[in-house]
């Protein structure tokens, strides 16, 4: 089975500087949904740019399905397999019409016009952006541009989709559309690496990795990682609302579960406790599996 394997990489923008990445190791398996969270300037974007060889590590290696990003010959294939959606869609959409932009990647692969237009149609359909096919990018809203940027990457038929803060500066409606799209793409088998500093978004992932000052400091299931409330706050992030609620209830000394991410989970725990005031049911398993 293929995977992205980041093996003990360090990266310096300039020699003698603080490392932007400090001995980072990370694996992403096929079909997995990984959320990479961290405060501004912690190295998230730098790490992301290593995943398709835009930047090569100063030491260590990045391998995509066994291909080294430093190997010149496999670069084209790596760029096809690891699709990258940049933070600002205006830095990514480079053609004069949406349709043409979505076809940019497939054209670079040298596909025939018929194949290219087939891929464009598919990608537009998958992102529900068909109505804008003929429009010029500067006439689209922020959310629409984001979807078009994703479509442009999907048209390459990648195995891994890397998204750098895909919902920044979007209104709640567009944000939901983008997140729903990412989730549905993941369900269809595409591995997702979702870079964000919004922890609520991270709860949807299979796994969360937390970065701080160029290092990965926490890495595990969302419930395990995000319930380490104090550590996460010290880094400069926050935890989901429901996790915070559970953590505060737990601090009252009643053994309330802390591995809670959503309000539904918190409510059901509260209801369980209301039914059984003896505290036996809501065991403190939540606390003990984090350490």
């Amino acid at each position: 089975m293929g995977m992205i394997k980041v093996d003990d990489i360090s990266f310096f923008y300039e020699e003698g500087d603080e490392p932007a990445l400090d001995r980072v190791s990370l694996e992403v398996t096929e079909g997995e949904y990984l959320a990479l969270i961290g405060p501004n300037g912690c190295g998230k974007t730098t790490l992301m740019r290593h995943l398709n060889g835009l930047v090569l590590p100063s030491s260590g290696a990045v391998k995509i399905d066994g291909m080294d990003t430093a190997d010149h010959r496999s670069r084209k294939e790596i760029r096809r397999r690891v699709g990258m959606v940049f933070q600002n869609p205006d830095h990514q959409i480079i053609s004069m019409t949406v349709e043409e932009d979505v076809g940019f990647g497939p054209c670079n692969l040298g596909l025939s016009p018929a194949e290219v237009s087939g891929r464009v149609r598919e990608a537009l359909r998958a992102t529900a952006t068909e109505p804008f096919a003929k429009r010029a990018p500067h006439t689209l809203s922020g959310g629409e541009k984001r979807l078009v940027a994703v479509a442009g990457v999907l048209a390459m038929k990648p195995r891994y989709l890397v998204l750098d803060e895909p919902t920044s500066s979007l209104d709640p409606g567009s944000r939901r559309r983008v997140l729903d799209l990412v989730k549905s793409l993941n369900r269809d088998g595409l591995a997702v690496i979702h870079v964000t500093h919004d922890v609520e978004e991270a709860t949807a992932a299979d796994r969360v990795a937390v970065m701080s000052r160029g290092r990965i400091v926490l890495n595990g299931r969302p419930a395990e990682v995000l319930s380490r409330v104090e550590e996460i706050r010290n880094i400069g992030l926050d935890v989901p609302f429901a996790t915070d609620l559970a953590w505060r209830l737990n601090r009252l000394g009643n053994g309330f579960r802390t591995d809670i991410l959503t309000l539904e989970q918190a409510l059901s725990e509260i209801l369980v406790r209301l039914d059984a005031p003896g505290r036996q049911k809501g065991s403190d398993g939540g606390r003990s599996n984090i350490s």
Partner: protein
Amino acid sequence: MINLPCHYISRESAVHRLDPRLKIVMLILFSLFILRTDGPALAAAACLLVAASRFARTPWRAVYSPIRTVAPLALMVLLAHVLMSDAGPAFSRAGWEKGFLLAGQCLVLVLAASILTATTSHLELIGGMDRLLRPLRRLKLPVQDISMMLSVALRFVPVLAEEARRTGEAAKARGADPGSGSILRRARHMAALGLPLAMQCLLRAQYLAESIEARGYGSGERSSLREFRFRKTDYAALAVSLIIFAAFFIYVNY
């Protein structure tokens, strides 16, 4: 939104649907002929162009606003020839004739070009140019990169215009008043806007280069979404224009 004088106007017409390569080549041939015409032939060519623009259903505005833009230039050409022509002394009949002919040629050339740009989208124009210049690749000219640069530049014209507007507004919000003061002050204001805009452009270029690279550009032969193929109407248009060109040629030379 900015509105350039040479603006594509999306309509359904036979002229719009013609192969862009054919239209570009016809424009070039037409321009060469125009430079060799006399008065009557020029008038005939102008009538032909007006007829073509009606056939293409382009609005009058789209065809004549570029002409208005170059009218001062044509006027200068006319005056220059009237005042000091090689055809005769100032205000001579020959001077007027030559002046009118050259000014008319200017206007007809612009009219022809504006019909091309009004009926052909930038995409098609660049695609057509790319195809026409393709043989030059043998000479190791980076034709593909050039057409890519052109299309990216055009894509970002509205974006940069928007950015300039925002930078200007931000300056106004902090008390700048670009519309007043001496020419020197206004110039200084323009320079103050220019620097941040230039910085933004450079930064943007860097980001764009990265995203273009990430999407696999430059790793081999590119294909195209658009196919260029001659259809019946293209052959018909080619035949008609060849006949007209032949007539012109005979008229001019014999």
